[in-house]
């Protein structure tokens, strides 16, 4: 009868940052130990594995570059998501917003005649607008029809994916792609400059850091930020105070979608330099960023750290493949475990947990 509640749980009245930090670290440690079992199973000492992963991801030019490359989209998207989550809008659609941003940028890169020095800036603008538009759809659906944001954003990811598919197989397929499902390579004027010898498109990285800072100030220090927080914390109070929930939701999704769009521009014009299969274009950044934002406790500045963390994890995945020669799927197991342990830790923060049998 009472087996169901064998652990007792009370809300913590207040939440100290130390608790957060301590518990998170403990969780990751626990996850590493659990994952270690797999390495052992493959006859690799966990110590060696982790050492290799860290050095491989941070200890060398390639490693740092790879980590950075993964961090850029996670940072941009993650920042946008923290803002959306602040207004209690569960934007699971960053993946789709990224793709639409990429589409818009590609359109400008390949098909719009304009002075070359303008092309790149215009691409970024177009990407932002594209992502924003895609993000506004679920926002409107929510404020107009009250449609569950998780569901609608998720659905739109697939729609966006199919649009890309259709473009690269049909109208936009590149004449020089020899029938492969790509557009042509971008002209030099449409390529985001990289740090030489790497695929780190630094302008986008700078954009990301700027976005984090601006978003932080926006939410914490400005008038609209105040409104966002009120809406997110207590919609009724917002209505009572005459704050338009509609405006707020539209605003956050405009930004959230837009930033995801920028990430799309970065991937398509900084890394790939052509539009190609959605799965290759994004590597699931839109979903990983949800975790990044969630882990940052909806604080845009903290995203700088958490996105880098997941950059390391993703780059570490390469190490698992290259240096350890282990099946690449271990990366997913690894991420899955880390996640579950963090999820578990989440509630140790929000609640004080005591075990029934300890009380007796």
């Amino acid at each position: 009868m009472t087996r169901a509640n064998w652990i007792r749980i009370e809300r913590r009245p207040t939440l100290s940052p130390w608790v957060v930090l301590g518990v998170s670290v403990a969780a990751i440690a626990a996850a590493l130990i659990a994952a270690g079992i797999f390495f052992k199973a493959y006859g690799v000492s966990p110590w060696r594995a982790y050492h290799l992963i860290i050095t491989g991801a941070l200890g060398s030019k390639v490693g740092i570059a790879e980590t950075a490359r993964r961090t850029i989209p996670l940072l941009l998207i993650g920042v946008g998501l923290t803002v959306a989550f602040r207004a209690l809008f569960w934007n699971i659609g960053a993946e789709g917003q990224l793709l639409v941003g990429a589409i818009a940028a590609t359109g400008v890169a390949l098909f719009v005649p304009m002075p070359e020095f303008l092309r790149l800036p215009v691409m970024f603008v177009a990407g932002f607008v594209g992502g924003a538009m895609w993000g506004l759809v679920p926002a409107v659906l929510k404020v107009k029809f009250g449609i569950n944001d998780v569901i609608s954003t998720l659905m739109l990811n697939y729609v966006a994916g199919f649009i890309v598919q259709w473009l690269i197989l049909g109208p936009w397929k590149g004449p020089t792609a020899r029938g492969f499902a790509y557009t042509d390579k971008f002209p030099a004027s449409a390529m985001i400059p990289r740090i030489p010898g790497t695929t780190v498109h630094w302008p986008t990285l700078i954009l990301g850091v700027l976005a984090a800072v601006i978003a932080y100030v926006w939410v914490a220090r400005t008038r609209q930020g105040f409104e966002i927080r009120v809406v997110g914390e207590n919609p009724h109070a917002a209505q009572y105070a005459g704050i338009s929930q509609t405006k707020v939701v539209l605003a956050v999704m405009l930004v959230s979608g837009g930033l995801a769009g920028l990430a799309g521009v970065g991937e398509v014009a900084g890394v790939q330099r052509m539009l190609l299969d959605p799965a290759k274009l994004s590597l699931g950044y839109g979903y990983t960023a949800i975790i990044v934002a969630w882990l940052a406790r909806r604080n845009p500045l903290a995203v700088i750290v958490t996105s880098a963390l997941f950059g390391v994890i993703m780059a570490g995945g390469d190490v698992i493949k290259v240096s350890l020669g282990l099946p690449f799927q271990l990366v997913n197991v690894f991420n899955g475990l880390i996640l579950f342990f963090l999820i578990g830790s989440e509630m140790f923060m929000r609640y004080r947990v005591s075990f029934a049998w300890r009380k007796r």
Partner: protein
Amino acid sequence: MNKRLLGIIGLVLILAVGGLLAAAEEYVPGTPLKVGFVYVGPVTDYGWTAAHDQARQICVDAFPWLETVIVETVEEGAEGAVIDRLILEEDCDVIITCSFGFIWGTQEAAVRYPDKIFFHCSGFLREPNMATYMADFYQIYYLNGLIAGALTETNKLGYIGAVPIPEVKRHISAFALGARAVNPDAEVHVRWINAWVDEVGAAAATRALIAEGCDGFAFTEDTATVVQVAAEGGFFSFGHYSPMYVFSPEYCVSGQIAHWEAIYLDFIEKVYTGEYDAHNLKSVDYWWLLQEGGVEAGCDPGMVINPAWVDRLQGIMVDDPVLGTLSVYDLVMTRLQQMSDPGLSFDPFQGPIYDRTGTLRVLPNCILSFDGLTTMQWAADGVVGPWPDEP
């Protein structure tokens, strides 16, 4: 504070220099050789990547001085960094990238590391230190076509194509030419799944073609799905890339098997002996067919035609302007023999060949040039279905 800063700068410099040094040293012939393989799929895909990895294994067994590193499931576009790691951290001397999609990353890397040797599969870009290679199936698809054309009762054959690129189009046309050679009414119905690995899609496409009345199947997809789904309905099929006989001993008639090891053994050995180095590869392009042993006809090693079908094929007689009346079985064997011997007295794309729009594509008494094959966009007569970029 300053000390630490200096420390960091120093570290970075050392790493960078170290990197350059690692990149700088060129392979000395005769010394142990380390080769890095970059795969597009999982080594378990039982198609393209699996075939490459088996070939690698054979090389490792053959050359005691050879060490290999593999990286599987590398997204196209992410190959650049992987190559960096293979060179800087694993210090490989040779990088082999096993997918057309790696073309740009490989070429950029070749420029970035002028002293390393690169070997890119099925591409068309070459550098002094970057060669290309391909083991092509078009001859075998022609043989499969002969068999299919003879066996079909509905005169409709199905082909599940991965991606509409010249390579696949060439294979489909060869298959169609073969079928038409023994059965003028044969049609090859095509469906694209726009992916190299997509079981659900391949299964659905096969069922769609079955519904359209096709009773025999060839395909380009990196699993045995088509073979299995066809067998379910009692339809014959041709294995692709790996020996797929096991997936349907009763209905898998023949097929194509790749022998990448033939190419790898040759190339790696020539690097070892110093015949190939980082400066003389600009014009090295392996285009290996039956005759070089790059590929093999059949659904299982050494089994050109599934014994269960031999009698039936020997029973079907056809007329050939040159060879006269003979059984399809003999015809297949003759063509195979003709294409395997050095004299090369036969080629599937022997003129005159009209495409399905009626345009003359290969002049009488000519055979299609290498360039014509690798850039082929037209569809041979008898091909039915969508055909992107058709001229």
